[in-house]
Every structure is written in C-alpha cells, then in structure tokens.
C-alpha cells in the first residue's frame, strides 16, 4: 500500500443559513486556502474529486457549477461523488494508489438551508416502498433510537450526555454554530421532538464546505512537518431497506473498522460522524475501542452538520490534530444514508 497523507485541511465556518453567498462563493476561499496551505498549485494537483448532492440545491448537475470555484482550465482530471466528501477522499486515496500521481484535491459543499432538509433526505430512500411515505430524516432516526432503547443497550440519559458533551466542545470550535453548556438533567426534562428524540438529540441544519489535499510518500514530508498518514481506510454499506437491517447495531462500521485496522484499537482522538446522539453510542459499540479515546473534540455533527461535508470534516479534524502535534493516532468516521446505512472508517497516524 502506498503511503498517503493529509497535508492540508480547510473548512468554511458552518452557519445555519448563508443568505448571501451561493455554493461557489462559499467554496472558493476554502479551496484556495487548502491549496495554499499545501503549497501545490492546482495545475500540479494530479486528481480532483468532489462530493455534493444536487437535491440540496434542487438543481440537476449543480455539482458541475462547483467547478467554477476551481478553475478547471486547461482541463483537469476530475471526478465527483453524489455523497459526502469523505467518499470523495476514499476515491482520491484509491487513485493515488495507482502510483502515477502524487497529489489529490478533495472538496465538498452543502447548502442545506435552501430546501426542507428533513424532507429532501427522504429522496435517498427506495422510490417504491419508502419515498412515497415521505418519512423525514428525523423520524427515521427516531425509529432507530427507539429500537436501540427497546433493545436496552443504552438509555436516554446517555443520549443527553452525548448532546451535552458535544455542545460544550463545539463552544471552542469556531467552525461550529450550535454550542452551549447544558445540564443533562435539564435536557431530559425537555419535551420530545419526535419520540424518543428530543431537540438536543438532533443535529443543526448547516451550510458549509471543506477541502483536503492528499499527498503521497516523501513529497508529503517535504511540504508538511507532520503529515497525517492514512494507515487504513475502508467503507461498507448495509441494506437499503430499513426493515431488513438491525438498526440497534452498525455492522458496516464494525467491518469497515476491522478492515481499516481500527476496530478495538487505542486512539488519542476519535471523530465520529454521528448526526444524532444515539448514533454515537451505536458507533462506539461497533468500534469497541480499547482506551478512553477523546470522542469528537470538535463537537462533531451535533455542533455543525453541513450535509456532504460533515464526514470529510471528521477526517480533517482528526488529521488536524495529528498535523498540529496534539495527537499521534486518530480514527475518523463518516456516514451516509439513513440510520447509519453506509460507513467509512479512516485510521490516521503521525510518523
């Protein structure tokens, strides 16, 4: 396996609603800062790949306009995933394994504020049996939380504790926009939003963007003092039909973590893409980490949840802590689809 490292990571500060800027205007400063941080001009980047979703913009081929932020002339080698940028990073990592190029730019963006996000999310379901019922994203997550509580692996207090810790950590993350000091007992007195989920169990709706530059081998050491090496990366998907899955566990996360060399491991920091509080508990069960790793010091997706970027941001946040020397080994996770349908695990290390 060829050594590939994150050498730069930049994100736009997430906001509930960016009323003035379009996606390109949000993205452009992020991409140029990520390239500048890497010291590699676009013309020397071997491969560019983006992650976004046309349903967020409500416009077919909206992702093509994202290229306006890049300056793809003369023509560049470029690809796109209709997914979170974490999967764009996976494609870039695979592309770098070919060995003929040394660098890749990954960018992603999501402006969820333009549509009714919980309903937009129902468009990802199977079009015959589920989409016609219009189950919104929060209701689907609530089904999963109910299954978990009924199974008895966790309780509502643990869920509220995840919310309190995440919102507290988000206060020191300038890129998060939902933070604060909350008391678990007080949170538990709040009414249900969609039983058994309370408002604090749900992520905010966010507009945002992020970019990462990956570089292979010694070149990464030349341009970055402490590159964040990708020691393992894998993603697995479960059945599309919610009814044919056990929602109380995340078998795809367990398998991806196993394949990436992260399951049962010890980490300084873990960044999990768990938009709903109960999902963090399910993910941690699946990962079976062996030490008390610091979970989501960024505040995670509960502090800022820019669709199509929140997963890549987890990888970026984990990598950032290796690059700045505050962590030696980190695990990052990204999710896609309803109720943790598809999961990606990435293990990062310093030298």
């Amino acid at each position: 396996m060829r050594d590939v490292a994150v050498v730069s990571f930049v994100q736009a500060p997430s906001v509930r609603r960016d009323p003035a800027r379009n996606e390109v205007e949000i993205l452009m400063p992020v991409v140029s800062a990520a390239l500048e941080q890497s010291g590699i001009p676009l013309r020397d980047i071997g491969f560019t790949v983006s992650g976004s979703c046309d349903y967020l913009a409500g416009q077919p081929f909206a992702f093509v306009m994202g290229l306006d932020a890049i300056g793809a002339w003369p023509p560049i080698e470029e690809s796109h995933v209709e997914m979170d940028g974490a999967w764009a990073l996976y494609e870039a990592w695979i592309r770098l394994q070919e060995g003929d190029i040394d660098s890749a730019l990954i960018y992603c963006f999501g402006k969820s504020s333009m549509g009714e996000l919980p309903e937009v999310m129902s468009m990802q379901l199977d079009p015959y049996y589920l989409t016609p019922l219009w189950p919104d994203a929060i209701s689907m997550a609530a089904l999963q939380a109910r299954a978990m509580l009924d199974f008895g692996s966790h309780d509502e207090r643990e869920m509220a504790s995840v919310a309190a810790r995440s919102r507290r950590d988000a206060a020191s993350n300038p890129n998060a926009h939902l933070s604060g000091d909350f008391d678990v007992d007080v949170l538990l007195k709040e009414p249900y939003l969609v039983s058994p989920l309370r408002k604090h169990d749900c992520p905010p709706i966010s507009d945002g963007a992020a970019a990462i530059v990956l570089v292979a081998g010694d070149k990464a050491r030349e341009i970055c003092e402490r590159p964040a090496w990708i020691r393992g990366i894998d993603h697995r998907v479960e059945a599309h039909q919610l009814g044919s899955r056990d929602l109380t566990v995340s078998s795809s996360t367990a398998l991806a973590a196993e394949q990436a060399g992260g399951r049962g491991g010890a980490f300084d920091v873990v960044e999990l893409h768990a938009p709903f509080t109960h999902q963090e508990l399910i993910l941690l069960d699946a990962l079976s980490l062996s030490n008390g790793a610091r979970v989501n010091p960024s505040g995670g997706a509960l502090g800022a949840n820019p669709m199509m970027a929140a997963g890549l941001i987890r990888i970026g946040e984990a990598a950032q802590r290796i690059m700045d020397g505050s962590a030696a080994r980190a695990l990052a996770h990204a999710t896609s689809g309803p109720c943790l349908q598809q999961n990606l695990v990435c293990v990062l290390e310093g030298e």
Partner: protein
Amino acid sequence: MSDPVTGIITPVRLEYTYTPGVAASRFLKRIASKEIVGQKCPRCAKVYVPPRGSCPKCGVPTEEEVTVADSGTVTTFCIVNIPFAGSVPVPYVSAHILLDGSDIPLVGLLQEVAAEDVRMGMRVKAVWVPDEELAPTLLSIKYFTPTGEPDVPIEKIMEYRDA
C-alpha cells in the same frame, strides 16, 4: 391472480428558497433598471454575464463589475419546432447571444424574425418589458430582435461559437 402492477405514480414536490449569491444578486437588481452587468476576471480579463463571483477558467474571485450592452451577436441558435405549455408559437428561435462587452453568450429568445432568416453573426438587441413591469429577473427582457446592422463575420465569433 390479479393483474400485475406495472407502474406506480408517486408525486414528489420539494420547495427551495434559491440563493443566487452575491454576484448574481447584484446582476438581478441592476436588471430591474435595464442595466446588464457582468464581472471581469482579474487574471484573464474575460467578462462573465451573468456574473457568478468567480472565473471558471482561472478559479479566482471576480469583483470588478462592468456594464455591458443590451445588444449583441448571435453565436449559435436552435429552431424549436415542438411547442410546450406556455411556449411562444413554433417555430421559434432560441439563440446564444454574445452581448457587446461580454465574453460569454446568454441564451435568449429571438422574436420579430422568421426562423429561417436567423444567422450566426446576426446582430440583435434586447426588447425590455414596459418600465412598470421591470423586476430583478431575466424575464425583464421580453426577447431579442434583429437590429438590422450588418452581420458580424463568423471569424470574429469563432471563440464563442460553442460556448
């Protein structure tokens, strides 16, 4: 055994509040006063109409605003023969129009001209809605119509022909 189900209809409707962005918002506001503004790339000097805040060729922000003419040249066109709900009578011409001072053609409807008389290089100008109907939308331009000026030689619009 009942008849097999061969198809279902599942209505889908999503509503969006579209955000045109900083650059396009300025463009739309000026349209309401019959002015067409573009933005010039600080690197390659190309002028984009409508402006989107960036030069797609150079990948740099565009800030300098320039006013372009409401007249221009047909770079290429399509004769539409199939009507749709709310369309103007067919055949009609949808054309790419390179406004004077701009480096990228706009798509516009051509009227007051027979489809068979439209040519690449033809000079046209905007016909605006009455002043009281002007609004921040491209619908403020009713259509384009020939000016009667001599055609622009095809060599001069080659660069924009396929845009």
